[in-house]
């Protein structure tokens, strides 16, 4: 039973990182319909930004994290501005954007591997690395920070979408792009904003990994794949759905280890995903996919 609780706690911690990645990716996909796998690169870049800001520029941890989040938001916007928007202006179909995105992901990962080597690089976290005992469960303070960050990030994003004018514009574009344009909403600006917000919300996940086990160039690919699975499970267009899907996947992976050897982790996740997509393609709370299509 102790092992079960420990695995559940670990699942929750990993899940909080998946949540941050999935709600960022889900926001972008639900609004722009870009299958933005290069989001994985933004996630990894955020981690390297934070590492570089702390280790190379010598900034204090908190400042390094803030700088990295802003830099990640700008990176996401630049990808839209310099790659997707020019392609869309020339009438590229969504598959083209996906392939461009995939190419960019590979490119950034490999450039990062050249600059920083493929070895994990860990940030200094001071007392955040101290362990905490909660009953039979052992975690670090950093793990608790991860869970709190995910919770706060999720609530902040939902409040932003619900109450701010820009959030309303994002929801309007996500629900009916044509109508949004009809009342004078500039799609390209809303897309840029979506990339900024979606990248900024995912950045802490990468940074937390750099703080915990260290950043590697290729981890973003797994994360973005899991994020897309979580979003489709949760239902496209639903932020709480994406979070729920992400948490579900993480718990499944980690609790699965209780009875099944750990090398089966991703097989479990993707196996369940296959069942989902066949049996319930709309996910937990999703809208019909057609309604989002132009």
């Amino acid at each position, binding site marked *: 039973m102790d092992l079960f609780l420990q695995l559940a706690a670990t699942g929750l911690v990993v899940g909080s990182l998946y949540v941050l990645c999935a709600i960022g990716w889900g926001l972008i996909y639900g609004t722009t319909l870009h299958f933005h796998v290069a989001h994985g690169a933004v996630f990894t870049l955020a981690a390297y930004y934070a590492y570089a800001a702390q280790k190379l520029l010598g900034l204090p941890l908190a400042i390094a994290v803030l700088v990295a989040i802003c830099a990640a938001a700008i990176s996401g916007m630049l990808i839209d501005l310099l790659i997707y928007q020019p392609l869309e202006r020339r009438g590229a179909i969504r598959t083209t954007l996906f392939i461009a995105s995939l190419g960019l992901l590979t490119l950034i990962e490999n450039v990062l591997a050249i600059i920083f080597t493929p070895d994990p690089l860990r940030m200094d976290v001071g007392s955040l690395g101290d362990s905490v005992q909660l009953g039979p469960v052992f975690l670090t303070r950093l793990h608790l920070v991860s869970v709190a960050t995910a919770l706060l990030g999720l609530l902040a994003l939902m409040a932003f979408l619900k109450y*701010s*004018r*820009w959030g*309303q*514009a994002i*929801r*309007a574009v996500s*629900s*009916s792009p*044509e*109508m*949004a*344009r*009809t*009342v*004078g*909403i*500039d*799609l390209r600006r809303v897309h840029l*904003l979506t990339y900024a917000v979606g990248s900024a919300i995912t950045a802490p996940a990468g940074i937390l990994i750099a703080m915990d086990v260290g950043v590697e160039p290729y981890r973003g690919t797994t994360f973005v794949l899991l994020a897309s699975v979580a979003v489709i499970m949760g239902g496209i267009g639903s932020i709480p759905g994406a979070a729920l899907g992400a948490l579900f996947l993480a718990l499944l992976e980690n609790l699965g280890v209780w009875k099944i050897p750990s090398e089966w982790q991703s097989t479990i996740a993707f196996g369940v995903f296959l069942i989902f997509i066949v049996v319930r393609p709309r996910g937990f709370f999703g809208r019909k996919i057609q309604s989002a299509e132009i």
Partner: protein
Amino acid sequence: MAAEPAILSVQGVARSFGGIQAVDNCTFDVQSGLITGLIGPNGAGKTTVFNLITGFLSADQGSIRLKGKEILGLAPHRVERLGVVRTFQHLRLWNKMSVIENVLLGCATTAGENVFSLFLRAGAVRAEEQRALDRAMEVLRFFGLVDRAHELAEDLAYPEQKLLSMARIFATDAPVMLLDEPTSGLDSESIDRIVPMVRRLVDHGKTVLLIEHNIELISELSDQVVFLHQGQVLAAGAPAEIMRDPALTEIYFGV
């Protein structure tokens, strides 16, 4: 009527899809402060004309001028800023948003437009939000939807959704409103509710271009009618004149 320059002028516009000439050398004027009915049999190109005017489609040739200014080739949100808005035949409401939010998004604001002013000029943004909110309530009152303001758009009855689709473009302050079949799918009682509304739009200084299949309605509502057939304007004039022309009624009713 001809002495006054048209607010919207469509000149020699053409658009084909593959081998099909959807709109061909289409020319007509829309006079300010009037209701112009765009009629014609199915497939005549009426909705394509709407898409061309509002920037959802690009034209192969021709010119569309709003108050003398070329708008053909502009993106839809630019066309809206210059003063032309539209509804869709399939309403495309923001179903998961409340009625007032649907209207609020149409209310023009400038301070909230710029992301940075959200942080730097929060006070100005808040004042403007309040003005937008007041404006949205006023629009809902005009359309008789005020007591539904906080319900989700998808929970409204269909005739009310039709009104909402008009309300949110009315809120943009654009002077030219293009209505794509505002009464389609409605029973006669609901039609009686919508029709005076279209009239009142004009009383509020709007110019209306309207696609409508109900001939009786068109005659009753429109000040002038443009008859479209196979993408071309066959005739334009007062509704009574158009309806009297046996050649046109034959095309329209296929008898």
